[in-house]
């Protein structure tokens, strides 16, 4: 039996969720992602659970001792559970600073992806639906953005805007929206050709109305999948920017930053300053990818059974 290609409607969302929960890997991904959210929230609301009044700077965790950082052990209480790292002759307990870093890594990635997706989707949907020269301009602009590797482009924009955290966020925003614009444009073109939109246009619906009531709701599910897959990529890029040392804020709690400082100890055979924060990144990117894959599987009508 040929399966008709269609977009899941609202009433299907409970079925979607059921299928998602049935997919064990996606469930694991979802649970871990939610845990990360909770940790990020805790960092905002109750930073004193991490032993500090604010988690906005690593300096709050710094301990002025000059010995080789010790590895993971149970003998140093909760803070020392995963060992210590050293930067700029201060020692930092890895577990609390990694947890504190989650807030920023996650918050900024979410911010970038959401705003990027919002702008991109709107622009793409309008261009795809309106067609003509608006569409043509959009395609050329996105072409230009795609002609330079993401990281290189981000570096160039950070260089232009200034080497600060917020500028890194802007830079990533600037390079990320075209992906969504392309995706939404493709979907909009497809939906535009469908009968119900033609009918709406014929019965006098304005294009703004069409875009908001037909196009946007229907492009949401592929955009949603893309967001969940991109969250991990953006977090990686964000960490890479810090790791490369282009952001000039040594005490910013960010996992790439912590690893960048920690790699100095690699030569001395200390693995934990790199591996522990690395696991925190990896766990998140893997989970978000599992969740994204699971979402795609249940939202893709072709795979939906």
């Amino acid at each position, binding site marked *: *039996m040929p399966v008709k290609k269609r977009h899941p409607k609202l009433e299907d969302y409970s079925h979607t969720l059921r*299928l998602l929960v049935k997919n064990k890997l996606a469930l694991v991904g979802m649970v871990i992602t939610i845990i990360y959210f909770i940790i990020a929230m805790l960092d905002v609301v109750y930073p004193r659970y991490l032993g500090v009044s604010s988690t906005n700077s690593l300096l709050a965790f710094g301990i002025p001792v000059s010995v080789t950082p010790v590895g993971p052990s149970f003998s140093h209480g909760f803070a020392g559970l995963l060992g210590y790292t050293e930067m700029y002759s201060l020692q930092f307990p890895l577990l609390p600073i990694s947890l504190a870093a989650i807030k920023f890594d996650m918050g900024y990635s979410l911010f970038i992806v959401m705003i990027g997706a919002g702008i991109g989707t709107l622009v793409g949907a309008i261009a795809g639906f309106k067609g003509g020269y608006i569409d043509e301009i959009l395609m050329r602009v996105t072409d230009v953005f795609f002609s330079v590797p993401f990281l290189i482009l981000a570096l160039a924009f950070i260089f232009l805007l200034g080497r600060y955290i917020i500028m890194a966020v802007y830079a990533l925003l600037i390079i990320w929206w075209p992906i969504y614009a392309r995706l939404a444009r493709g979907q909009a073109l497809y939906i535009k050709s469908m009968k119900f939109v033609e009918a709406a246009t014929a019965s006098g619906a304005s294009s703004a109305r069409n875009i908001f009531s037909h196009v946007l709701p229907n492009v949401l599910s592929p955009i949603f999948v893309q967001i969940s897959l991109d969250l991990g990529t953006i977090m990686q890029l964000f960490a890479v920017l810090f790791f490369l040392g282009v952001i000039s804020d040594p005490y910013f709690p960010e996992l790439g930053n912590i690893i960048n400082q920690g790699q100095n100890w690699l030569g001395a055979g200390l693995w934990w300053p790199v591996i522990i924060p690395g696991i925190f990144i990896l766990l998140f990117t893997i989970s978000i990818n599992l969740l994204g894959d699971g979402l795609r599987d249940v939202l893709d009508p072709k795979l939906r*059974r």
Partner: protein
Amino acid sequence: MVEEQQEQIKTKNDGEEYLRVENLVTRFFTSKGIVKALDGVSLSVKKGEVFGLVGESGCGKSVTATSIMDLIPDPPGRIISGSIRIDDYNILNDLPRLAKIDVKSETDVRVKRNKKLIKRHNFVISKIRGNKIAMIFQEPSLALNPVISIGKQITENILLHNRVEIANSIIRRESLTEADIKSFYEQIKDEKGDFRPLVNSWTRQFAVPVAEDEIVNILRSGADREMTVRELSEVIMGKKRGNDLNVISTMRDYYKREEELFNLTLKLLEAESQNDQNRIALLEQQISNLRYNLKKDFSSFLWKRRFFRKKYEAVFEDEARRRALELLTLVNIAEPTRVYDSYPHELSGGMQQRAMIAMAIASNPMMLIADEPTTALDVTTQAQILDLIRDLNKVTGTSVLFITHDLAVIAEMCERLGVMYAGNLVEEGPASELFNNPLHPYTTGLLSSIPRADVKSRNEIKLESIPGSVPNLITPPSGCRFHPRCKFKMDICAEKKPALVEVQENHKVACFLYSKEVEN
């Protein structure tokens, strides 16, 4: 005319069965529940017959066809039970051992597959598919591989099933002598009237059909005996390719042994299904001997083939190409050489479907399953494709299982007819009988739902459609699956399932209005 047709039907009814399907049950295990797609379908198609299968969409026609080809996608689907005899061999004889199905609940079904047996089953079935039974599909644009040229897709089929035969004809061609040509001339010179068919069959036999026109011209020129024979041998010998006969005969012998091996495997599967231990042991012994000998006797050939595959294949591909071009001409494609090298997207829907048919009949299967072959085409092309299928049936004697929801097409094409509803065959009989005297309420409804110009005597039947729609097969109605929509519903209908029984000569129906028999 009508009498003649009926005469034909009668003789065909006495004919041998080529396909016999019994109690076929196919299910799909989905996340929403088990779809009981086929619920004990039985039908048979005789040699040379066109059998129509008709019903609303979603009634299981395509699933029946796919099941007969053993192409049900697994997961989610599986054939659960039943038998499918193709040319007197039951392709499902190892079915119960292939997988254990553990139904915990509607949405939780665990299938434990025996990979080794499934592999053997697939090996056997792949030698039957395309060779003894072939299929053409509804949407040629989807059914043709978009990245492989039409020619390659046709020769693929030829090269899969006709190796021995190709090798033989090449050998015949390469070892042609003057004496052969002389005897051919002797045979043909006394032929009065048109000698083209004779020339045609001779050239095919010796794989030199390219010389057909030249031969005919020489024969027509009316020169004396010696002169003609000399000219003939000049032309025919010129068609030789100078292939190494040793190599080709080695290859022929190798492929022959492979065929033997396959036949033994068939016998083994049969013996296993009968649980005949002595025969199983004997056959297993024979198979392992044959395998061993195959490896031993052809070890040097196999080694060489591994490294010079292209060179070895070229001879066969060359011949396969020639045959493919012939096939393309046979299905009325005007420029076979151009179409041979083109890709599916470069052809129109009608041309694609012709190419598809050429591909299906490439290995001369005795049965063709046509699954709504004209639904996706425009009306004029439809008629041409239907004519083509009918011609093929007449010329080659290929049986056709024709699936459609279009009753007009059925009336035009088919000698016998089966009506399906919700995974059951509800009525079966000669087409004319079913059209004039439908018994099952569903058939009646189906026939009256189309305007009919051809039957004036039944003017009294109003144009009406059947109320309701095809039921959800996850939770099909109990008893007779048609009863919720039936005008003549009785109490028994919801409780028991009627069996398909012969109520008139050659006319079977599954309905309690006509018999009280119940399916076990």
